[in-house]
């Protein structure tokens, strides 16, 4: 459907020029522009505590977005991430009612995430099914189980020590979640850029058959990516549940869209094969700043979703419109 002609230029651009003209630097400019616009638009924006609050808008989503970026680079997608959060959160809520302590809760949250990821992974890599339908199915299934367990009820009563994961501060205004986000970002950046595993992910996304003949175990790598995405959703579930202090089956509804938007906005090709973690990090800041800035201006959440949806289409459409206009 999409055949791209790859031409080899006569002269390579200098690394500096390449970096200057990259998607990431464009995105950084956008982030700075939004930051400046926000500080003019609202007097409350430039306040250390407010900015710290703003990071909660994206830290949990970004954690999942890193794993999702790898998955999309490899040519697959996982739309069930938000439903995994719901299921993991429900499991933790049920455990609280049985008197499980904080370490046990974290263990349960992460295990449920891993199990859900493994389930997706087995269906996609083991049975060779298209990931988009499988994860649309598991999205209903996982959230459906939450609804069966909870109905219109909610779990609460999480222990005080558990709330640290969502409400704790490591130092001054630097929240635990933000530190976790930064650590995970570094891990994924190194994994994707320096490790054999990361190079294999790019190879699979560009040419699965070629990757297979190069000795890469394509299905195994993809399975691990689904596991990672599940694990990240589990971590996000722990943070989000700790931050909200309660579990409803509708928790994190629609996050899969925002996470995919974050990844695509970060310059990851939805067709697979290219993208960087740095891009996703900047995209996370852009989305966090936009939602926070609009929030300060009393713009309702659903109108923000127009902005998010417009960003998703716009960031892909504008470069293509630009090349169409230039090649005319």
């Amino acid at each position, binding site marked *: 459907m999409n055949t791209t002609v790859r031409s080899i230029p006569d002269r390579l651009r200098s690394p500096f020029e390449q970096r200057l003209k990259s998607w990431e630097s464009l995105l950084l400019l956008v982030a700075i522009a939004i930051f400046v616009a926000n500080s003019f638009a609202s007097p409350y924006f430039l306040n250390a505590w407010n900015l710290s609050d703003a990071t909660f808008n994206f830290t949990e989503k970004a954690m999942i977005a890193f794993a999702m970026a790898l998955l999309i680079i490899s040519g697959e997608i996982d739309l069930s991430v938000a439903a995994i959060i719901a299921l993991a959160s429900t499991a933790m809520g049920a455990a609280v009612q049985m008197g499980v302590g904080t370490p046990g809760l974290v263990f349960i949250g992460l295990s449920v995430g891993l199990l859900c990821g493994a389930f997706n992974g087995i269906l996609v890599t083991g049975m060779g099914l298209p990931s988009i339908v499988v994860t649309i*199915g598991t999205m209903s299934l996982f959230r459906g189980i939450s609804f*069966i367990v909870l109905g219109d009820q909610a779990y609460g009563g999480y222990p005080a020590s558990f709330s640290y994961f969502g409400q704790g501060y490591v130092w001054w205004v630097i929240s635990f979640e933000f530190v976790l986000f930064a650590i995970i970002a570094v891990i994924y950046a190194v994994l994707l850029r320096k490790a054999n595993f990361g190079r294999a992910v790019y190879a699979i996304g560009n040419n699965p058959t070629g990757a297979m003949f190069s000795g890469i175990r394509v299905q195994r790598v993809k399975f691990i990516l689904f596991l990672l995405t599940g694990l990240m959703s589990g971590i996000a579930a722990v943070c989000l549940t700790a931050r909200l202090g309660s579990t409803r089956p509708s928790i994190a509804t629609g996050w899969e869209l925002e996470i995919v938007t974050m990844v695509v906005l970060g310059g990851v090709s939805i067709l697979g094969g290219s993208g960087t973690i740095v891009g996703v990090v900047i995209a996370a800041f852009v989305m966090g700043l936009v939602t926070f800035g609009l929030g300060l201006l009393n713009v309702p959440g659903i109108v923000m979703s127009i902005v998010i949806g417009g960003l998703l289409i716009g960031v892909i459409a504008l470069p293509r419109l630009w090349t169409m206009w230039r090649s005319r």
Partner: protein
Amino acid sequence: MLKRLITSREALLVGAIGLLLILISTRFSGFAAPSNLANVFNDTSPLILLAIGQMIVILTKCIDLSVAANLALTGMVVSMVNVAMPGLPIIFIVAIAIGLGALLGMFNGILVWKLQIPPIVVTLGTMTIFRGIIFLLSDGKWVNSHEMSPAFKAFPRAEILGLPVLSWIAIFAVIVFGIVMTRTTLGRAFYAAGGNPHAATYAGINVGKTQFWAFTISGALAGLTGYLWVSRFAVAYVDIASGFELDVVAACVIGGVSIMGGIGTVAGALLGALFLGIIKNALPVVDISPFWQLAISGGAIIIAVILNAQANRKKGRIILKQAEQAS
């Protein structure tokens, strides 16, 4: 010929639906009565209409996740038109609904065709944009039953030959699209564009344009359903039919429509929708909490997609793929 008919996907589904009905009847004997089945069909009609549109889109290797948002937006617009001009004949309301729905579908289609943006990205985006626009139009307010004109609300319920108009529209759509998909150039182009885009291009079919028309049809059907939905339930607000796009995709997958494109029939989409509709209507009757419905449709999607893959694997055309699985 007969053997092929019996082992076909549709026959399998008819069997599954029959079995389902027998199972439900053992718990509640009145369920399989003709009058109740007519009610179930009427209740499933919106899903059938959307599933036909979605099937055509999926045939061309695309997916339309914005159908439910399109339905809600069109429903809100026609309700507001009705509130502003209560005297406007229903035929105009229907025309506005189909026209606006088609326009929204065309917007998706243009982005997929001219800018070659992956359909899942386009429709995920338009899904939230459409919902947001409803909020901007309505200010988050509801259009309630007493604000709508009686004629506006009566149309889908009016009975012809014992069946409501809503059901007749679904039947009409099944027949029309059954003919379009099997007997017209455009219908065959949908199969060609999804089955083998390269071959379709060499056969003189503009694949992008075919996808554009698929989105337009899906949008038009969603728009029509939007009016039928708000008039039947006599209320319009931002969140109507929220998450319904998943049911629609589920109906298609259960009906044997291959997500890889090129495979699927109108009858399959119809049966897939009926399967889900019967489950949805049977749950309260057999004393299962409606909260089970989401998990059941999720499970049904997964089982159906596994069955589809098994059915398509037998052909074994691609040698390399099997080597990959062996490793």
